[in-house]
Structure formats: C-alpha cells, structure tokens
C-alpha cells in the first residue's frame, strides 16, 4: 500500500548455526556441515528470494547478552548484560520503547525474550512484561517442542487477522534448536543423550566435523563435553531434526505474511550458534565460528534484492536495530553501535563500511573479526572484589556493582588468531607465529580504537 511503511517481522531462533540452512550447501561444501543433512524448504525460500549474509556474527555468544544487544544496538558492557539473568540498563531504550517514542507502529512480542532478569518469556502485564511491546503469551516451559508451534501459530493468526492501517513491528522468539541444551549431562545433570544408536538410524546420522579433536589451551574453556562417538552423532542428528521443526514454524509465519496485501520485511536471525561437536564443544560461550556466526536473512519482495549470498560484508547483531529503524523511516537511538544494512540489501551503494565486528564473551574475552582474520583476547579478572555483582534479596535479578577503580582486568597470554578464509574450521592458531605479529598489533589497535574508547559502560543494571 502506497505511503505506508512496511510491517517488520523479526524471527529469532535460538542457538542456530549459520550452516543450518539447506540452501547454503554451495557455501558450506564440506559434508560435515548441517546443510547437507537437513531439509529446510521455508528458510530455503527466504534465501532464494532474499538477501543472506554469510559473515554475520552475534554480539555476544550467549542468549541474554546477545538479545540485549540486538534489541538496543549497544554492546554488552553498555547494556549491562554481560551474562544471562541480569537485564538491560533501564537508561537504554529497547527496540519497542524506541519505536513507541519515535514511530507510529503497533509493537508485539511473542516467544522467548530473555533480555531481562532471570526469566525468558514475557507476561502480558506486571514486572515481567517487556517495556514497549504488547505480549502474546505462550507459557514458560522454555522448550522449543512445547512453545514454538504456539508462537508460530498465535503470531501467524495475528498477522493474518490484523487489518489495522498502522504498520506492525512483531518479534517471534522461537526456542529451537536450543532444546539440544538439555541433551548435555555435564551441564544439566541427569538429562542424557542415548549412549548407542538407540533408534537404529545408522547412516542417517551425520559425521563428526574435521575439527572435532582440535583443542586449544584456553583459560576459560566453556562447553566442552566428553561424549562417545555415538553420543556425538545422536546429538547432531537430534539437533538437525530441531532445525527442521524450526523451519516448519518459520514457514507458518512466512505464509501468514504472504497472505497479506501490504509489505512486510522479514528478518531471520539467531542469538548465537551451537558447538555442534566442533572443537568438542556443545552450546555457546566460546569465540569459535560455530558459536559466533549466525544466519541473517532479509526478505521483502520488490524491495530487498533476491537471491544474494553476501560473503563480503562482515555484519553483526548490532546492525539490526539501525536497519529496522531505517526501514521504518526513523533515526537510530543515540550511540547506536551498528550500521544500517538497508542500502546493502536493497542493492544500493552503502555509505558505511562493514569490514569489522567485535564480539564480547562474558566479561573476560573479546573477539575481533577484521578482513580475513579473527583475533581473540582473554582477560584475567584480578580485582579485589569477590565478584562484580551482587544478588538482590528477592533473588530475581542481579545488580552490577559500578566500577570504582578496584576492578582490574589483565590481558592473558593465551590469544588466538585464525585466518578464517583459509582455515574456516579454525584448526591452526597463528597467534604465536612471529609472521603475524603485525596483524595482531593492528587488531589490538582496532580493539582499542573501535571498542575500548567507544563504549560507554552502563551504570544501572537492575531493570528487567
């Protein structure tokens, strides 16, 4: 419809690897990648008729911090969400609040939020309602096999039935394939993956990745699991079936959008990836490609270029906030760290360069991806506080104690450097090779100039 700004539907999966879309077989040729073992007809359609970024990164490879950054356009140290279960600094507007103040859009949220306190799914009222959004409630079991078809079903009902002249901004927080987290005995106690080929799947189970046994001496190695080969294969097989379930629920939402006569921009992304047996990892919380790379697809027939697989621009979840603002015709919030991708996805010359991303992992690791290289620095916390946060007496949220000079972070000598273009499986650490010392020096400067000197640490982290 002429003159009306496009509706915007953001679909966020949880823990989806970038190669977990079947249409990407040509980009991920090794048969160990997920794309060779799954059927994802609905996401494939978005890839063939939309714009995909292959160098797309999350801001922080863990759920809450990634979502806090995605919905504000700010780094984790600025939102205050450097780990789960804290909440966004109330001085920073989330996407719903920013649209509420600056755009005439109806704003709805359905599904997993997890950017506020210790809870994942919002209420329709009360302290667990997301500021700036109406909520379509779907329960709290926090598993994809229970929640996702409710999210897809309920939100697709709204999308089909809504005839308001006002455009909508809707977010679908789908849980899959995060359910795979509950397959892990080390982290979740008694919940176990089958110890043998319990369902006689044989060669339907995928192979282990070529970097499965590659390990690096890391000071804060998270999410390593000592499975047998059978357990790893069962893990990967089940993860891939969850991706197929996710695809079906994405399909429900896309079909609802296509039933409308007006324009709806669809953005599909994820908060972070999954270990997927690479470097013997599960889950996230680490700086390797499997955790930090996520899908990012834009789809708006007639406006967004079709069938573009962009492996040049290096982009991040920080770019989503300015991009949706750009499509809505409103300015970005102040100090937004990302850049709009609207010109790029529409095939126009872009005034901003996209050759650099910085990721934060907890409060102890920083990652820079610049050109072909990825650089990871670890910091040791040596302050005289026992820990940099305290728990409130109600047990629901935590408050970050403001820095007062007693916190100290010292660089550790366990850096990582990979040439991602030549070594996509991250098998060889170049950090100790003198041939690359100039590159490391340059990336240290990038980190100092483009991150440490830019970020404004948040001051008030006790908001849901």
């Amino acid at each position, binding site marked *: 419809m002429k003159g009306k700004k496009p509706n915007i539907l953001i679909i966020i999966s949880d823990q989806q690897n970038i190669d977990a879309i079947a249409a990407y077989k040509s980009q991920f040729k090794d048969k160990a990648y997920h794309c060779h073992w799954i059927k994802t007809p609905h996401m494939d359609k978005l890839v063939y008729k939309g714009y995909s970024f292959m160098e797309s990164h999350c801001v922080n490879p863990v759920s809450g911090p990634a979502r806090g950054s995605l919905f504000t356009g700010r780094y984790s140290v600025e939102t205050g969400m450097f780990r789960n279960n804290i909440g966004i600094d109330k001085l920073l507007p989330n996407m719903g609040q920013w649209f509420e103040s600056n755009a005439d859009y109806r704003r709805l949220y359905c599904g997993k939020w997890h950017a506020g306190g210790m809870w994942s799914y919002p209420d*329709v009222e009360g302290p667990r309602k997301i500021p700036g959004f109406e909520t379509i409630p779907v329960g*709290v*079991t926090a598993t994809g*096999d229970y929640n996702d078809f409710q999210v897809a079903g309920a939100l697709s*009902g709204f999308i089909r039935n809504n005839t308001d002249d006002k455009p909508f901004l809707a977010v679908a927080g789908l849980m899959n394939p995060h359910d795979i987290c509950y397959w892990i005995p080390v982290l979740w106690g008694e919940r176990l993956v089958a110890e*043998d080929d319990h369902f*006689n799947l044989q060669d339907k189970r995928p192979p282990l990745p070529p970097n499965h046994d590659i390990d690096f001496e890391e000071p804060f190695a998270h999410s390593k699991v000592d499975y047998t080969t059978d357990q790893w294969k069962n893990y990967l097989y*089940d993860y891939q079936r969850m991706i197929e*379930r996710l695809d079906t629920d994405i399909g429900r939402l896309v079909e609802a959008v296509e*039933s409308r006569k007006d324009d709806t921009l669809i953005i599909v992304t994820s908060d972070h990836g999954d270990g997927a047996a690479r470097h013997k990892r599960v889950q996230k919380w680490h700086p390797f490609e499997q955790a930090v790379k996520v899908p990012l697809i834009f789809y708006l027939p007639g406006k967004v270029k079709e069938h573009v697989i962009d492996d040049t621009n290096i982009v991040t979840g920080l770019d989503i906030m300015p991009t949706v603002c750009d499509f809505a015709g409103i300015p970005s919030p102040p100090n937004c760290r990302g850049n709009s991708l609207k010109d790029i996805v529409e095939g126009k010359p872009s005034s901003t360069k996209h050759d650099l991303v910085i990721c934060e992992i907890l409060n102890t690791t920083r990652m820079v991806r610049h050109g072909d290289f990825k650089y990871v620095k670890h910091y040791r916390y040596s302050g005289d506080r026992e820990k940099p946060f305290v728990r409130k007496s109600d047990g629901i949220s935590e408050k970050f104690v403001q820095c007062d000079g007693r916190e100290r972070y010292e660089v550790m000598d366990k850096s990582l450097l990979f040439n991602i273009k030549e070594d996509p499986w991250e098998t060889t650490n170049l950090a100790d090779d003198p041939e690359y010392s100039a590159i490391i020096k340059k990336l240290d400067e990038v980190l100092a100039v483009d991150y440490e000197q830019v970020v404004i640490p948040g001051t008030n982290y006790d908001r849901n």
Partner: protein
Amino acid sequence: MERKTFIRNSILLGCSMVVSLRYSLASVIREELLRLNPGNHFELLKLYRIFERYEFPLTDKFDRGSYDLSYQAWNMYNSGDRPAGSLMLEKRTNGRMNRFSFHIIRNADNGQVDKSDPFVYDVKGEIIASLVQLPRLISWHGSSMIRRRSSDVPYLMTNRDIEGSVNGHNLVLTEAGKTKTMVYHGNYLNWKWGIIDLVQLMAEQSNNSLRLSVLDELDMLYQDQSLVFRNSEELKYGESESLAFKVYDLTGDGVVPTSYWVDNYGRVAFIVSGMEAYMIH
C-alpha cells in the same frame, strides 16, 4: 462390631487398597522400566520423573475402533510441577469412515504468578479418515487461539481456522480465504495425532514398520518419516499381574525421535520425545 461400622470400614479398606495398588503400581512401573533398560535411561528418565506424580489407569477392555483417550502432556523443563497441558482424542467409526475429534490445551501463562484466569493455547478439530488397510486422511478442519481459560474470545487476534482435504497426493488447505496446496511424495499420509491410532493398529496386526508422510498441526507437511517396532517389554506386579508394552519409534523429517508405548490393552499409554512426554490419564 456394628454392621454399619463394619461396612464403612470395609469400604475404606477397599478404597485404600485401590489407592495403594495404584500408587504401588506407579512405583513398580518406574522401577521395572529402569531395570529393563539399565543401559539406556535416556528415554525412561523422562517417564521416571513423572511417575512420582502419576497413576496408571487400569481398565477392563479397550475398543480400538471407538474410544476416548485422554493424555496429560508433561514437559521435562518443569516436570514434577504440573502437567504442561492435555490432549483429548475421540474416535468414532461409521462403516468405513473414522471420525477423530481432538482437543489440545497447553498452558500459555507465565506460571510464575498466581493468576485467577491464566492463558491457554487451545487447538481443536476433527479429522475424517477412511479405513482401507490403514486409516487414510480424507478431510479435516480445526481452530487454534490463545485465550483466557474462562473465555472463548481469542486474545489479540491469534485465532486461526483451517480446513483441508486430500485428493490423490494433493492436500488442499484453506485459511482466511486463502488456499494452498501441498503434495506428499510417499505412499501413505497420516496426521500428527492420528499416529496414536495407527500405532495401535500396527500393534494389533504385528506390523513392524511403515513409512509415511505426516500432516503436522493441520497445516504443514513432513514428507519422510518412519514408524518401526523396536521391542516388547513386560512389567510384572502383584501376585500374577502384568503389563506388556510394545514400543514403536517414529523417526525422520522434522521429528526428534519419538517412542510410542502400547500397553496390553492395546492403547498407546506413553508417548516420549525430546523434552515432552504424553501419559495416558
């Protein structure tokens, strides 16, 4: 002892025996299923945690051709707290046609705050299937919505109404005035909750395997799934009682491997998959 007192005490004793039989049966089920499969408690662990709050419903008989089945849906994320929902399935046979009515209720409230009128996700509908060798989908209609428990009004326009029919290998679906066609590739099509009836039939006929396409939640299609008989389990309790189960596994496109446990009455008693379990109730 007076007659009235004797009768009252006898009734109380009889009731307590029934209660204790059911309680002890649940304990026996738990222990025995773990004993039968000590090396693979992945699947049984889900049942184990739920059995502490569960009573297995005994029955005199079960008519596979016409029945009412009721299930509690449990989600492992909060097992031991309360069921996450319920599934009611009713089958009536009329000559060569089967009519399945289903009603699924899922808790849609946050659960963290005591609410007097919480939200639910409500899905209900009807499936018509013919019976040749296996039940074959002919048509269906269904609706879904988020609503308050006390209300029939959809919350925030979340309602959907879907009608569909099968013509050869084509499924034609209509929703909100729009039509879409899906084509299934294999030889046999069933629907998500129709697999309960299918497994009961396979158990009765000792049919060991079947490949199928599956209509998912009334509106989507999975092309290539397999139902395979895995093994039989026998559970003894009391002096001479026993429960026998036949276990069928569903694998393939879009399904985290799912097991259907058919009891010796011929009913699907448990459905166990991923983070969910359905327990006959």
